[in-house]
């Protein structure tokens, strides 16, 4: 069985550009969450989507947006990139997005902003 898959694995963008990151959850999982991990820190929650609706949002500016598609895959968009957006972006999936559900992470997308 395929785990959580993310694309692209690595990318380099210039300040001010826009980026779209993609995530496919584990088959049967309906909840997708996005996390940002800056070097030396733990992952920080950005968004959670369940059944195509936003269920939770972390403390990130409006430059960050996301959506979930009918097949439960998801995209994270970041506009007007800043140097500080350089990080590992992790997607996680779970069955129902409820407390206690085991959450599985993908390998992440490494974004470098120059």
């Amino acid at each position, binding site marked *: 069985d395929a785990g*959580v898959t993310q694309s692209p694995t690595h990318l380099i963008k210039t300040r001010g550009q826009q980026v779209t990151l993609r995530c496919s959850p584990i088959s049967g999982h309906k*909840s997708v*969450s996005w*996390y940002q991990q800056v070097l*030396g*820190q*733990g*992952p*920080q*929650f950005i968004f*959670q989507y*369940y059944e195509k609706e936003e*269920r*939770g949002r*972390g403390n990130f500016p409006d430059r960050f947006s996301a959506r979930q598609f009918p097949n439960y895959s998801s995209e994270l968009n970041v506009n007007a990139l800043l140097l500080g957006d350089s990080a590992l972006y*992790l997607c*996680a999936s*779970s069955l129902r*997005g*409820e*407390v*206690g*559900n*085991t*959450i*599985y*992470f*993908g*390998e*992440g997308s490494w974004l470098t902003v120059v």
Partner: protein
Amino acid sequence: DQQVKQNSPSLSVQEGRISILNCDYTNSMFDYFLWYKKYPAEGPTFLISISSIKDKNEDGRFTVFLNKSAKHLSLHIVPSQPGDSAVYFCAASGFGRDDKIIFGKGTRLHILP
């Protein structure tokens, strides 16, 4: 304001001995605590969890202890093996309707031969 704190950035333990990783939290509303393990260039892998109504959960070589009065949890690995060398994240969830996880900064565990 860090709600989940791992105060030891790194820990070295001899192979075969016990590894003890510690974690403190500040939010008494957390319902669920988790430990994740992360190798370089990989996403975090779920290791073990514990509900706030329990004080111990064991899974093979891994045991998590929860002390709610002290707002402290610990992960014990016995015996430690070379493959255990990784970054370990303590995390907590459950104060809302979503499964948002709050992570600590991580502890890098080195298992020495």
